[in-house]
Structure formats: C-alpha cells, structure tokens
C-alpha cells in the first residue's frame, strides 16, 4: 500500500484539504436542514392535520436518488458545491422533521401546564422547556442525518469534481489505485464516527439530568434513532 496519501494533483487538494472540504459540504446542509426543520416541525405540532401530508411528501423526496437530484440541479446551480448541498439539506430535513415532532410531542402535558402556570410565554416555553426535553430525539435525528450526509457527499464526484473525498474514489478508478479508494472509504467512515461521538457528547452536555453510561435513551429518542425513513444511502 504505497502512496496511500499520494493524492493525484488533479484533485487540487491535499488529503487534509479534502477532509475540510468534505466536512463543509456535509455539515452545512445538516445545519441548514435543522434550521428549516425546527419551524416546520413547530407548524406540524401546532396544526396536527399538517403532519401526515408533510410526512408523505418527505418520504417521496427521500426516495429520489441523490444523483438524480444533483443532475437536475446542475441546470440551475451549475457544477458547484451548492448543487451537492441543496439535496443533502433536503435529506436532512426529511430525517429531522419527524425526529423533532416526535421529540416535542413526547413532552408530557403536565410539564407544559406547569411551565404555563409559572408564567412562561409560548416562546420561552418552547425554548426552555420543549426543546431541551426534545433534545435527545433531535440529536438522534442529527446523528442519522450527519452520517448519511457524510456518505452522500461522495456521490457528488459523479457530476464533475464536487465529491470532496468522493473525488478520491473517481481518481482510484481512473489511475487504477485501489489504495486511494480504501483511503476514501476509511476516512469517510472515521469522520462519520467522530461526528457521531461528538453528537453523543453534545447530548450528554445538553441533558445533564439523564443517566449516563450504558443506559437506554427515552422511547421517543429511540424511535427517532431507528425509524426515520432510512439512514445512509
């Protein structure tokens, strides 16, 4: 396995440069998805009839292969990072909306009543009571979205040079150097696991009242972890 880190010069990036690019292309969409998902989930919580159609629509969106999304977007946004990031933001949205709705719904009515009785307005109640209690479920959704996002960026290699570490896969084929493909797969897997660990750490920080260690998360969080329509594609 010589030349494991000998990145062909046509990629115009060093290995660490590719990692930085990959993380940016993967994580910005997740952040955008979260920002969009919070108000949508809030609307779905307020107007219950809205939730089933939103869920149905997001399932269909999720079934559209990422490559098709990229190709169709080329017409509008060109062969740029944006073309890769828009579909990834949509996929994150799809995973996050049900996770947040489930999480916010899992807040007991008595807790909400207690907050109201203490004089919390709706905004403060949302920010200081509902969101913190829903945090485990939201982070479970974020874990799935992040892992899938990191994996899907590599498909961007097919629409030109926009796959970050995925470009390494294309180079591995072009120059017949399997070690580059090993490098890409291992690096992406390690990045995904690192992000996962960071998110678990974040959950522990945000929910100091929850027992640590080998304990099982709340049912709502668990459901969000296992049943969002799919994870990595």
């Amino acid at each position: 396995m010589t030349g494991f880190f000998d990145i062909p010069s046509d990629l115009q990036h060093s290995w660490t440069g590719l990692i930085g690019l990959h993380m940016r292309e993967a994580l910005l969409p997740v952040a955008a998805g979260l920002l969009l998902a919070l108000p949508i989930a809030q609307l779905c919580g307020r107007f219950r009839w809205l939730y089933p159609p939103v869920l149905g629509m997001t399932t269909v969106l999720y079934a559209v292969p990422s490559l098709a999304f990229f190709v169709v977007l080329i017409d509008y946004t060109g062969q740029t990072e944006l073309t890769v990031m828009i579909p990834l933001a949509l996929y994150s949205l799809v995973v996050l909306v049900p996770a947040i709705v489930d999480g916010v719904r899992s807040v007991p009515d008595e807790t909400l009543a207690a907050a109201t009785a203490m004089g919390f307005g709706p905004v403060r109640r949302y920010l200081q009571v509902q969101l913190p209690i829903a945090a485990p479920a939201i982070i479970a959704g974020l874990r799935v979205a992040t892992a899938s996002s990191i994996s899907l960026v590599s498909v961007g290699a097919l629409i030109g040079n926009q796959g970050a570490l995925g470009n390494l896969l294309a180079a591995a084929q072009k120059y017949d150097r399997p070690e580059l493909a090993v490098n890409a797969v291992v690096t992406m897997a390690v990045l995904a696991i690192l992000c996962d660990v960071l998110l678990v750490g974040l959950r522990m920080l945000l929910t100091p009242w929850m027992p640590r260690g080998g304990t099982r998360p709340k049912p709502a969080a668990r459901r969000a972890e296992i049943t969002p329509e799919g994870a990595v594609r």
Partner: protein
Amino acid sequence: MNVLNFVNAFFSDSAHWHGYDGIPQRFWEHLQYSLLALAVAAAIGLPVGLLTGHTGRGGNALAFVANAARALPSFGLLVLAVLLIGFGLLPVMIPLVVLAVPPILVTTYEAVRSVDPAPVDAARGMGMHESRILFQVEVPVALPLILSGLRSAAIQIVSTATIAAYVSLGGLGRYIIDGLYQRDYEKVVGGATLVAVLALLTLAVFWAAGRLAVSPGVRRR
C-alpha cells in the same frame, strides 16, 4: 423547461417502452436487485435481531455494529468492491446489504425487546418452549415495528440500487447515469420518477403486508 415537461416527454416517448433499455425491462432489473439485497439483508438482520432481542443480550454490541455500518459510505464501498472484485452483481450487493442490515437489525432488536413482558412471562409459565415464545408471542406483537424496519431498509435499497448502473449493470439507475453523460435531462428526471414510484409501491406493499399479517388485536393499539 420544467421538471414536469421532462417527465411528460420521457413517458410519452414510445422508444422508452420497448427493448433491453425499455422501462419494463429496467424496472424489472431494479426490482430484482432490490429484492435480492433485501432478502440477503433480512437473512442476516432478522435472525440476529430476533435472537438478541429475545435473550436481551448484546444490545450494545449491536448498536455499535449498526452505527459502524451506517458510517460506511455506500458509493465508496461500491467503487472499492469493483476495484477489488471486478464487475458483476456481487460488488453491487455488498453496499446494498451493508446499507440495509443496520435498520433491520436494530429495529428488530428493539421491537422484540419492547414487547410487554407480562404475556411473555405468562407464556413461559404455561410451559411454552423458548422458540414458541419467540415465534408465537413476541414476534406477532413486535411485527408492526419489525415491518417498519424492513420497510425503511427496502426504501433505502430501492433508492440506492441506482448505483448499480454506475458499474455497468442495469436497473433504473441506467437512465440517470446515461442521461447524465448524454446531457439528456429528460432521461434523468424520468429515471428518478420511476425510482420514486417504485419506492411508493414498496410503501404500499408494506402497508398491505401490515394489514394482512398483523393481528387485529395488535393493530388496534
């Protein structure tokens, strides 16, 4: 030109309905890859999930394996498998199975674990054999969740099986990849629509399976 025009143009062109590159043929190929991958993934995920769920042991190891598998990029695995094994069906099946095993495994485990312990204890008290407890008490109650794990795996497989075309196999991905290289967006959009339709059909099949297989007593809850 908007997307709907593309869809209309694609489906009204009769050249897309015949021959080895026709919609029926590609649809059938896609279905074959998806079913094969789902069958292999279920053959791995279901027994392990049922067993660990029934005994309640190995849950942490299971979560670790599922998380690790989730971290593996499908497209990267595909390219790697092709470079190491060569072209064929096997390098396509590897990423699809790796993709589908975690949801099946974890959901099945959680489903069996979360069965109300009272009926399980009652069954054990009546002298039922462990295997009968699993298949006659736990599985029927856990079935809706188990099916939801299979469904979510199936949808991911259907959507990801498009990558088979990247390594020169058939399936609906053929339209997307060919359309990309021929700058024929009509083909790309048509292929994507077909994949979405197949995913919706998958949802419908699982909904029907749930209606048929899940006992009314469980469904009502």
